[in-house]
């Protein structure tokens, strides 16, 4: 090969790197290992994580321990889907392109909006991309967001907003729901978008239609983040006046994976189609009149428009979107609705069951679908530790993101969380709270002489 190239030595090929810039030493890393050794090392690392197979997982907060059917793994692990790149050559990418088209159709059905893209990175950054779209559409640069929007979405939006120079105004919660009066007050003629989430981070189902009226009145876009698993039951954002519906796609056919990769879905009204971020597949014909699919509307994208592109994103998370499509086909029209109902029924049961535990009360009484918030009469972190010892991850401590809910716990339900596990959670929570109370009681008794007189 060197001869064909016309060089004597291998090093000549790297001669163009100036001497001072050559590393000139081996990388300070171990040498390569055999497949068995690498497997053992990775298995050892994996073994030091308490996963949902080891602990019964009631944690949600945006990602959920749903059952991913075997058919998803079988199809997404096929080389033909796993190893190609973006379908730049449509003649040899009809499989992937048709999957995108089918996925777009499914997401459009779920959200009740006519246009879907083929997927974005994940949930929170999709919110930031929607904000960018809204600025372009309205020529305004102020967002009004509910405190019920996922904290990661709010923070990501704020990060991006520094770049594209927008203001973010937050509206608080009242009884678990977005404060409607404060929202109406906050929206004005400079507002590019109102951004809501339903169910919101506390699990409460918002009245999007009523809240969105303020956006409509002032010509702002209504952006709604939603949980796809609830869309068989809850009125879709498109029927509530949303201009954009988006969200974290993980619950559909994707593993927890400690937070990714998953995908974001992004649907909009026809009016926004030419401002959409990301890849979009479209139907067309070949020269012989055969039906086929291509990447449509590429004139929006960075490789054509460069600095005038509607977004910089190229990745559609195509494999993750395929997992979602296969999961949705497997559930089917009826199964998808039944699953939504199952979540609502079990969530209602779990909420009632936990609320009856001494030391537990509801954080809000708003309607919920698959997740709910309670208050504990003991340190949440300590209670979580005690319950974890019994093999249960009881939920998400709200104090991590909401200082006003330091005593709050967010509990999520999936089809994997059966009644017996819910009962066990209730029992374990009750015992942990009682034990914590006893301990702090005996602590304060033994502390009493020390602090005596100061109380």
């Amino acid at each position: 090969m060197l001869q064909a190239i016309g060089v004597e030595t291998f090093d000549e090929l790297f001669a163009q790197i100036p001497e001072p810039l050559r590393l000139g030493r081996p990388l300070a890393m171990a040498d390569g290992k055999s497949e068995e050794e690498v497997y053992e090392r990775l298995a050892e690392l994996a073994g030091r994580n308490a996963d949902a197979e080891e602990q019964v997982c009631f944690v949600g907060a945006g990602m959920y321990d749903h059952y991913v059917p075997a058919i998803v793994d079988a199809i997404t692990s096929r080389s033909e889907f796993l190893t190609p790149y973006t379908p730049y050559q449509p003649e040899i990418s009809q499989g992937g392109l048709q999957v995108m088209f089918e996925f777009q159709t499914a997401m459009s059905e779920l959200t009740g909006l006519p246009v879907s893209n083929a997927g974005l990175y994940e949930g929170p950054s999709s919110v930031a991309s929607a904000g960018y779209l809204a600025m372009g559409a309205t020529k305004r640069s102020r967002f009004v967001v509910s405190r019920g929007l996922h904290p990661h979405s709010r923070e990501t939006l704020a990060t991006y907003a520094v770049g594209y120079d927008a203001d973010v105004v937050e509206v608080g919660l009242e009884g678990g729901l977005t404060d409607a009066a404060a929202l109406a007050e906050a929206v004005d003629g400079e507002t590019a978008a109102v951004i809501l989430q339903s169910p919101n981070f506390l699990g409460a189902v918002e009245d999007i239609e009523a809240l969105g009226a303020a956006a409509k009145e002032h010509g702002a876009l209504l952006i709604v983040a939603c949980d796809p698993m609830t869309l068989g039951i809850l009125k879709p954002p498109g029927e509530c006046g949303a201009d954009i519906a988006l969200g974290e796609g993980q619950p559909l056919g994707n593993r927890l994976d400690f937070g990714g990769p998953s995908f974001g879905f992004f649907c909009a009204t026809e009016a926004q189609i030419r401002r959409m971020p990301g890849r979009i597949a479209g139907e067309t014909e070949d020269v012989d009149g055969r039906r086929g699919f291509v990447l449509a509307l590429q004139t929006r994208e960075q490789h054509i428009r460069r600095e005038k592109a509607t977004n910089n994103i190229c990745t559609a998370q195509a494999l993750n979107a395929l997992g979602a499509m296969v999961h949705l086909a497997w559930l089917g029209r009826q199964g998808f609705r039944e699953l939504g109902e199952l979540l609502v029924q079990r969530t209602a049961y779990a909420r009632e069951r936990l609320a009856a535990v001494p030391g537990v009360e509801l954080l809000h009484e708003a309607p919920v679908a698959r997740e709910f918030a309670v208050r504990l009469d003991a340190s949440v972190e300590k209670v979580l530790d005690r319950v974890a010892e019994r093999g249960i991850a009881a939920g998400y401590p709200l104090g991590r993101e909401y200082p006003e809910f330091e005593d709050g716990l967010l509990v999520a339900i999936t089809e994997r969380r059966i009644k017996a596990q819910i009962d066990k959670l209730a029992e374990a929570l009750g015992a942990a709270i009682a034990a914590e109370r006893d301990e702090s009681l005996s602590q304060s008794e033994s502390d009493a002489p020390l602090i005596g007189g100061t109380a």
Partner: protein
Amino acid sequence: MALTQTPMQAEAAQTIYEKSKPGRRAAALPAAEVPERPLGELIPENLLRVEAPKLPEIAESEIVRHYNRLSRRNFDLDSGFYPLGSCTMKHNPRLNERVAALPGHARLHPAQDPRQAQGALELMWLLQESLSEICGLPHVSLQPSAGSHGELAGLLLTRAYHADRGEERTKVLAPDTSHGTNPASVTMAGYEVVKVATDEVGGVEMDDLRAKLAENEGEVACLMLTNPNTLGVFDENIAEIANLIHEAGGTLYYDGANLNAVMGKSRPGDMGFDIVHVNLHKSFSQPHGGGGPGAGPIAVSDRIEPFLPRPQVVRREGSNGHGPAFDLEFDRPKSIGRLRGFQGNFGVFVRSYAYILSLGGDGLTEASEIAVLNANYLKARLAEGKAGERLPIAFDRHCMHEFVLSGKPMKRDLGLATLDLAKRLLDFGFHPPTVYFPLLVDEALMIEPTETETKESLDAFAEAVQQILAEGEQDPDLAKNAPYTTPVRRLDEVKATRQPVVRQPLGN
């Protein structure tokens, strides 16, 4: 060419919705087991959905057949040579899929208490350390989800760095050969792009760089480069470029799309770059998945570190006989904040870390060496015969991991566009190179073979190109009407943009 339809062409495309029949299904769901109440008692009627979304109704056997059939309508890296320039289509070892699927990784909740996710955090920390060594920069954030996300992160870091010094700069320099994501990211980050010209060997045109810096004195926030650049050429002036940018007060950003050329050979940090993004789906073997997932970690210098996204994975030394512990650090007052939910594409990190362990420092270096050898060999093969005549190299010198040919003489002499050659290659069972990029080369073909191809596959590709040019001399229409053997033939892309049909109408 006498045409009869291939069996796949004869089979009309049918979507899964068109195979749907009311009442069919695959999933049987578990019973609720709890006392059930009417939905309207739990959630107000006005918030409930009336009609179920029209998802397909189809049996599991039919779902499997449907998607298997679709899979056969894809070309993929496991089926053949995929020399897509700038995309680093290297082999994806299956071990990486296996370890990513271990329940300790795949079923680990992202909000799990760090004390109960020590293995995952240690893996992330180890990957950070590895990327830090490869890039020659001391700090790494794994958070960005893709290369373009890493670019946006880098520009927001640049903004935060300048703001911290009380400066507001408005312009970002990028060469005219840059990836399209560069200028798109610049706009999203609120900056204005200033183009820098390319010299006769594909490097930054130094006089133009000096001129642009002088014209925009005090306003240049950053220069975005990839080195080797998009023409596959290592910019020998990089040290001087770094000096000029740093003297002008700007940061130097490295688009890591081409890192596969220099692993273990030369490090962006040593070249003077402040911020680097690494495409784990390129150099570090994460499968491309038909367009994602990937990940775009960033490595940065000390002066940029305070601004890194949060949370950051950190290692805390143990005390009282305990070993070190790993944690997520949120308390970073100067941080630009989050770029996404949770901690990043962990499943991608597992695959890439397994890849790094498998190859080791020695293997990664060898990977870059073979990538460069393969590219130069293929370049030499394509400099022979008709290809040498009709498809000259855009910049004639040794290349790094990829090279760019110009189809200008082919178009002039045979009337064949680069697109025609690309489409005819499909009939020969090859994925074509990247076409019409970079923009400054007429009728460009950008070829990146990667290190995981054999000499035989490179030879076969070169011979196919030679053959297509030979038949083009006899009958140019053959290539102009190609492809013939693919599941569909040339598609009307204009129609798909003018009258977009982006979902299936489903009626009731």
